[in-house]
């Protein structure tokens, strides 16, 4: 009780430095938790997303580019493959389902992806979860110029069932390259929290035969999404061997999760830099606690002497300073959760807008315990030097002048 009273009074008496140092701890703690959460959740989410497929078959090129383009709807297509290649893989005994996709157009920057109705009827994008349209809508008729709009696009572009639009050529929006075709929105997808939410889905032929596209490539597809037969453990290896080692025309990106993990391996240095910056901010914030308390020790000497004269032990005052520095850190860590919430919410918003991948800022993770415990301990450690000064304060010298 006495200790807390002394600490509380001291925090109040030095309110400005308490707030400033607590804010620096809040920033450090918020950064530490944010970097950790964004990195781990993003990696877990990205490597976990496969839209229900095991592999992607595409033109010869980078597996990562193929996966980013076909599954995450980012990056450009590495090239097309012939319809015969699609049929070939679709009839492979190891393959349960092969769904072709075609890309090459956009609507105000949101890409149009042409596919077959199997994508919606047979694919579970997550266990037990199939794509579905919101009430009042329907999937497109493959023979018509119709479109099903991802939830995110529908909200951003304010598209509703019955609306019409003209696609634009290319994957990057250019208002001069509008196609003449008019598409009708037949449905809005229910949110899936996957990259599919950021796409406008159209019949495959619609993309293939859009005016202005090369008629020679009218039957080509951009990629084939492949689901391997369950229980066929060697299927992926066999097909990897067939397309990547023995063949030289096509690329078989399998398994999708491992291909995406390679992306995180490549940008791992960036995480390390961010983590290092957060550690440095934590050290500087802790040092600021030390500096602020230490600098106030001169003005506290008289108070310490009075407390000692009243009977306070040296160890009591030592503990009071340690508790004060730990309390500043603890106060900062409370605010750190606000900083964390703000940072991760903004990152989550940007990530969803750019990739369709959703992370949950409020999902518990171990760093939410580790960071507060470590920073409070570091705060307490920062109090040791001023606490020693308090411990050594000479009582008589700092009371009233000798008569």
């Amino acid at each position, binding site marked *: 009780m006495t200790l807390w009273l002394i600490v509380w009074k001291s925090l109040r008496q030095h309110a400005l430095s308490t707030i400033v140092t607590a804010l620096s701890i809040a920033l450090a703690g918020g950064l530490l938790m944010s970097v950790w959460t964004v990195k781990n959740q993003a990696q877990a989410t990205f490597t976990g997303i496969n839209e229900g497929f095991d592999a992607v078959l595409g033109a010869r090129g980078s597996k990562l580019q193929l996966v980013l383009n076909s599954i995450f709807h980012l990056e450009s297509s590495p090239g097309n493959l012939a319809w015969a290649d699609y049929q070939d893989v679709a009839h492979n005994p190891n393959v349960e389902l092969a769904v072709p996709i075609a890309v090459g157009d956009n609507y105000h920057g949101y890409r149009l992806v042409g596919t077959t109705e199997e994508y919606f009827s047979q694919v579970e994008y997550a266990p037990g979860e199939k794509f579905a349209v919101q009430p009042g809508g329907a999937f497109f008729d493959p023979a018509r110029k119709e479109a099903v709009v991802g939830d995110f696009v529908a909200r951003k572009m304010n598209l509703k069932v019955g609306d019409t639009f003209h696609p634009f050529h290319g994957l990057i929006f250019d208002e001069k390259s509008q196609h003449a075709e008019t598409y009708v929105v037949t449905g809005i997808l229910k949110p899936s929290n996957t990259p599919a939410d950021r796409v406008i889905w159209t019949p495959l032929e619609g993309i293939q035969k859009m005016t202005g596209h090369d008629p020679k490539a009218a039957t080509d597809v951009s990629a084939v999404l492949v689901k391997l037969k369950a229980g066929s453990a060697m299927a992926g290896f066999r097909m990897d061997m067939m397309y990547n080692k023995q063949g030289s025309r096509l690329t078989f990106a399998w398994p999708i999760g491992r291909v995406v993990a390679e992306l995180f391996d490549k940008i791992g240095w960036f995480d390390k830099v961010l983590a290092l910056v957060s550690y440095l901010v934590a050290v500087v914030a802790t040092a600021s606690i030390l500096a602020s308390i230490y600098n106030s020790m001169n003005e506290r000497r008289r108070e310490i002497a009075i407390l000692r004269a009243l009977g306070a*032990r040296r160890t009591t005052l030592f503990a009071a300073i340690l508790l004060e520095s730990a309390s500043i850190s603890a106060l900062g860590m409370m605010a750190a959760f606000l900083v964390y919430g703000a940072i991760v919410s903004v990152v989550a918003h940007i990530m969803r807008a750019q990739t369709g991948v959703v992370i949950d800022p409020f999902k518990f993770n171990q760093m939410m315990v580790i960071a507060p415990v470590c920073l409070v301990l570091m705060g307490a450690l920062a109090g040791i030097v001023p606490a020693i000064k308090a411990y050594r304060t000479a009582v008589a010298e700092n009371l009233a002048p*000798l*008569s």
Partner: protein
Amino acid sequence: MMLLEVSQLKKSFHAPDGAVHCVVQIPQFGLAEKEHAALQGESGCGKTTFLHLIAGILKPDGGAIKIDGKEMSALREPVRDRLRATTIGYIFQVFNLLQGYTCLENVLLGMSFGPGMDRAFAQTLLQRVGLGHRLHHYPRQLSTGQQQRVAVARALANRPKLVLADEPTGNLDHKNARESLQLIREGCRENGAALLLVSHDREVLAQFENVREFAAINQAAHEQVQP
């Protein structure tokens, strides 16, 4: 029965030039339980040092100080701190109130290192010194006389057996000094505490039946010893 017994007490200080100044050298001094005594002496004669030695704030170079039968200099510092908190009340010339604490908190804090906080008794004491309506005021919000009264209440908060008062009226005008002194003495009587007051103010000293000349008991007389 003697409450305070001092024998062969000696305390010296080192000056910046290396010389050693003996400030206190008292062969014998005593104070009975509930006795009120005043020590008279000019400024700088070692009175405060003597009180600090009795309170255990300073450690003597030699000699013995017994309070309530316990030899102070033989005790470990934490025990001495505890003894000071439970047995001694100290009133300083400049009050030494904690500025960030209210009147009530100043008194409660004085209790906390001793037997523990007793809010009701703290309030009673502050009412007794006429500050019942200023419990939650901070020292800076009080007059000098009122601050001195808080210091008196704080000194009596642990029901000490010995109250040490160092020029307690030095910063007060005549009227406040008289009232303050009266409060200190009444408070000590009501709580059964002995009082040892040091002052150079003749008006204050005149109110004591037992006044001793500090120079007569202190043989140090500022003799300087070369290192």
